[in-house]
């Protein structure tokens, strides 16, 4: 199902001052030997090492397709289709978003626009977080929380300015919002570029990497509109019809509050594992080969979002168990 001619796209988010520009500068100035196109907002720098810098204005468009939370990045559709007309092949495309941007429209663009989906693929959402200020930003700004919630990789930056026990605290705070992102602790965003670009994190088979250790259902939080995560595990096989009814209805009715969803499913009577991954109301799902021999066939689902307590998720998931 992987189409090798699709160019991978890394989306770079991060709250103001977290170090996103430092990372962009590294991508543009390091001798990485690959050909990247970097889509930036008012950056004004030129790349060396063959990189291409494209100026963009974030333009969030509503699709006229009846899906109420279906917003996409119109500028990105235009620029990606322009880049795909180039005679030379790009190794990767990096999209910078502004500090206050909601990452959902960027991610949704790759689900909604067929031309974009045919020629490119969302590789990973990488969020740069400021280890010093993240805790207060999470309290004050929805956008900071959303950027953590959507991330596949989080660079916890400026750790040299924070005491060890405070790093543990901020790490735990991130984990509560997002149990599946990979957290890399950095000083001046000094992570190797190959841990940031070309990860295939949005590929469905990476859903299988969900680490059970992170899946705990404790979720004490201060405000009702906090972003939290919930996860469920079942050793009893699920009923496919019941699950599709419940999950489809859930995304249709609560998709605005569910930022990300991921899962591995064991359906009764099916030999193959099913995996899915969603952004708000949109999702990809597909069978992903047989279960590994000798391993437990347990279903696991993770939700990241707001107001999850009022969605009867546990009850809904339990009801999907086959009789």
């Amino acid at each position, binding site marked *: 199902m992987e189409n090798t001619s699709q160019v991978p796209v890394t989306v770079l988010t991060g709250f103001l001052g977290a170090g996103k520009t430092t990372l962009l500068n590294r991508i543009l100035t390091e001798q990485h030997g690959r050909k990247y196109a970097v889509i930036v907002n008012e950056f004004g720098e030129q790349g060396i090492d063959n990189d291409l810098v494209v100026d963009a204005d974030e333009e969030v*468009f509503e699709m006229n397709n009846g899906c109420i939370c279906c917003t996409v990045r119109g500028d990105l*559709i235009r620029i990606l289709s*322009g880049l795909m007309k180039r*005679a030379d092949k790009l190794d990767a495309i990096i999209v910078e978003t502004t500090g206050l941007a909601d990452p959902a429209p960027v991610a949704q663009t790759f689900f909604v626009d*067929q031309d974009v989906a045919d020629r490119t693929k969302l590789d990973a959402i990488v969020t740069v977080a400021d280890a010093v200020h993240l805790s207060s930003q999470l309290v004050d700004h929805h956008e900071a929380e959303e950027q953590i919630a959507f991330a596949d990789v989080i660079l916890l930056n400026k750790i040299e300015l924070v005491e060890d026990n405070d790093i543990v605290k901020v790490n735990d705070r991130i984990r509560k919002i997002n149990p599946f992102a990979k957290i890399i602790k950095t000083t001046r965003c000094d992570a190797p570029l190959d841990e940031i670009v070309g990860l295939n994190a949005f590929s469905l088979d990476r859903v299988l990497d969900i680490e059970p250790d992170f899946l705990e259902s404790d979720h004490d939080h201060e405000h009702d509109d906090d972003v939290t995560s919930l996860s469920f595990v079942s050793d009893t096989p699920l009923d496919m019809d019941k699950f599709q009814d419940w999950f489809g209805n859930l995304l249709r009715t609560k998709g605005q509050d569910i930022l990300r969803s991921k899962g591995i499913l064991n359906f009764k009577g099916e030999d193959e594992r099913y995996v899915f991954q969603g952004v708000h109301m949109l999702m990809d799902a597909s069978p992903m080969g047989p279960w590994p021999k000798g391993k437990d066939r347990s279903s696991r689902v993770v939700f990241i979002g707001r107001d999850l307590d009022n969605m009867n998720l546990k009850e809904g998931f339990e009801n999907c168990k086959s009789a």
Partner: protein
Amino acid sequence: MNADLETFQKSNKTELERRGSVFNIGAPAIEAVTIRNQIVVGFGDGTVRFFQSGFEPKTVKAHEGVVLSMANYADDVLTGGDDGRFLKISSDGNIEEIFNFGSKWVDCVASHKDTKVCSSGKTVYVWTKNRDKPQTLDHQSTVAGLAFDNKGKRLAVSRYGGVTVWKLNNNKWTSSNYTWKGSHGTVTFSPDTKYIVTAMQENQIHGWRINDKADLAMRGYPSKIKSFTWVGDTPYLVTSGSSDAVCWPFDGKEGPMGRKPIVVANGGKELATFVKALNGEKAVFTGYTDGSVLLAEIDESKKPIMIRSSTGAEVSTIAISNDNSQILIGDMKGSILLSSLWADN
């Protein structure tokens, strides 16, 4: 329904392929325009090439990256590129830089007689005769399409949320908005200038009757519409985006409102990606995702003719020379077929 394309696919070279020339440029063919007896094509490697029957194509290195858009301008061509340059190129290869937008792309270009127009970002720049400095027309969102009506009196600018139609009176531009939710791309006026039509981000086209802004929503396509062309005296607006060439009738008071389109040139599994009218005839060339091209009359009872067989890369442009003697077909892998349309030539 029989797939017209499949019945041909097993056959050998077409008549036009036998008498024509094939050029492998190695970069996607983006757009083609005609000047005098030449067909000029912009490519994904920044080159502009002048094709003429009996001659080797002349190559001009115009842009750094991609030639994003083209228009003819008397005997020259205008091009916009992703290097931020808006250029006028003559057939002897002379390049004149009209404007340089730096790191911003020049997405769309258009012309009418002495007027040169391009868009970069949300702004349209208009150079009228004898003026060094452009007039600017601003919009709420990035401009995605430009079209003059055939008299050059009105300029349609498509964007998110609809189309702005600009009129020039006494050196002053006034605008009128045509609104429809969603993102609008390529735009065209009907030949009688009674309608404007856009290809949308969604799998549909949208039209407005200009005098009363009545909406025409034309839906039901399995993919995005990347190309349309006006055909015949009716006229029909023929569109890509489906396995057929979908032909909407724009005659009478109501145009296609409440009517069904005629569908011709069925491509079976392949989707139509480019359509081009055969001048003076009620017939259309349709190019498909696999590179093949059919010529069909707009008559569901007639059989189409195979013009080009499959190349494996989608047809991205078709152009007919001004004297109606030559056809050029280009695809996304950069293969170009140049051939005479008629056996006697």
